[in-house]
């Protein structure tokens, strides 16, 4: 059997309702024709616009320099990775970016948990409406929300001018914008509503009978929370954590807008090497490291979340 050849149906699958649609029916020319018609376009798109770019990027990361035509052969070299390993600041920035993303994800999850808890157990019939209310900020333009924080925190921004107007300070505070704290603040703001969703889903799945049983057996609310609610909601908590953590590691837009040079993250040096510095081979090597780090995290995440779901 060659790859991506449809499997032939087993004899018993020809009965009605026996899943004949998974294989061919009769001679099945129509099923086969449909298959190729809907198989080739996605295959082509994914190969040309997803697999090939990543492979090319990998190839570029083994290129010695940018000299010559973009499309030429070169002798693969580990120079870029060697200089990457030798330069401590890249690793430091990768470490800092990971820690920053970690801090953002943990903060977002901790702040979102009570939100989800309220929606799941106390909002009653209005829960749907309250949820929409929570999600509207998340659905507003991403760039716009980040800009709002720039306007809030800037030296001529809202907070400063308000404090001066109120007579609390004379000179504007410059420490508000263009640092890592501003990046963390903005990104927690951006992701907070989103983080509540998987936690809410996990909380809603808990069987209410468990609480009644626990209460009948004399468990106090705090004990119920510790022994029932929290453990059963952990899959949602992990999902929320990774849903914030993974996109945040690759973040480069928010640091660009509110982080300044002091708030740079790993994604920003990649962007720099492809725009200002035009050192694509080194930028590709940095991207490959980031891609590898992200994929490892995702594998880790699926392990962790699947493992938890076994106990559900």
């Amino acid at each position, binding site marked *: 059997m060659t790859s991506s050849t449809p499997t032939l149906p087993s004899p018993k699958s020809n009965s009605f309702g026996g899943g004949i*649609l998974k294989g061919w029916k009769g001679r099945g020319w129509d099923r086969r024709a449909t298959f190729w018609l809907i198989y080739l376009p996605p295959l082509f*798109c994914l190969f040309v616009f997803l697999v090939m770019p990543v492979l090319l990027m990998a190839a570029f990361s083994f290129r010695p320099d940018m000299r010559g035509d973009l499309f030429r052969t070169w002798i693969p070299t580990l120079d870029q990775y060697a200089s990457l390993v030798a330069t401590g600041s890249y690793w430091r920035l990768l470490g800092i970016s990971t820690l920053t993303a970690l801090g953002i994800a943990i903060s977002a999850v901790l702040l979102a948990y*009570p939100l989800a808890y309220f929606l799941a157990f106390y909002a009653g019939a209005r829960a749907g409406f309250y949820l929409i209310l929570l999600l509207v900020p998340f*659905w507003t333009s991403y760039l716009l929300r980040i800009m709002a924080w720039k306007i809030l925190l800037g030296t*001529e921004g809202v907070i400063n001018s308000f404090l001066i107007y109120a007579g609390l300070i004379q000179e504007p505070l410059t420490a508000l914008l263009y640092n890592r704290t501003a990046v963390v603040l903005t990104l927690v703001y951006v992701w907070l509503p989103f983080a509540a969703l998987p936690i809410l889903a996990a909380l809603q799945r808990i069987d209410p009978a468990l609480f009644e049983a626990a209460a009948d057996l004399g468990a106090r609310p705090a004990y119920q929370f510790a022994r029932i609610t929290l453990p059963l909601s952990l899959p949602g908590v992990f999902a929320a954590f990774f849903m914030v953590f993974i996109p945040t590691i690759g973040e480069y837009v928010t640091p660009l807008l509110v982080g300044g040079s002091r708030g740079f993250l790993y994604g920003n040096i990649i962007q720099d090497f492809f725009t200002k510095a035009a050192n694509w081979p080194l930028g590709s090597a940095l991207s490959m490291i980031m891609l590898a780090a992200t994929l490892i995290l995702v594998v880790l995440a699926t392990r962790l979340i699947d493992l938890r779901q076994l106990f559900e």
Partner: protein
Amino acid sequence: MKSRRGPVLLGTYYFGLIVLLYLPIALLFLFSVNSSAFLSFPIKQLTLDWYQKLFDADAVLRSARNSLVVALGSSLAATTLGTMVSILMLRYKFRGQNLLIALSVLPLIVPYVVLGVALLILFSVLHIDRSLWTVGIAHTVVALPYTLLIIASRFAGMDAGIEEAAMDLGADYPTTLRRVVLPLIFPAMVSAWLTAFTVSFDEFALALFLAGTQPTFPVYLFSQLRFANRLPIMIALAVLLMIGTLTLVLVAERFRRREV
């Protein structure tokens, strides 16, 4: 009954946080009707001038049109591909099936900065000039996981017996798809299309790498940030676009939740 302190405390927290979440957005609204180009307290005068000036600002409107074109094209492409992969995923069995599905959802986890530079390398190597096409292609790729997940979750709940019945009655498979399957998953397709549209319309991280001389609105907005006196006009348009996107999202939600 249990004590009422918990609910009150949680409710206060919930609505307090909601207020905090809306505050920055409300400030932008304020900024777009503020007479001065700087938003500083006390606010002197309110005006709709910025909205009026907006309609004379050609470049701004052109960038909004570019975003619209890219979002329309990429969302249609992503919905088509998402429908195809959904059918392949749920109605066929073939070698490499899992790989195809994995590739389709991969853009969800590849950092945008990595995908952006990878596509930049591809287009440069192929000598394809950066244009709305290149942005549209990138947006199609990143919207595919969303359309696939939305359509497949609807499709999965559908009884394959309906299709088998149609085929037993003599319809060939293309006809069955066209007359039976597509009408049934149509609400999910609309929802997927609207979602893909908003994903593309708002997207900046990829567009910054791939937009050439025709910036999309977010890219143009970003390029104008240096000029403080242009900011209120930009924000006025952003506010208008935001209202449009929000309407779309809410419509998409309605479609997604609609029963079979």
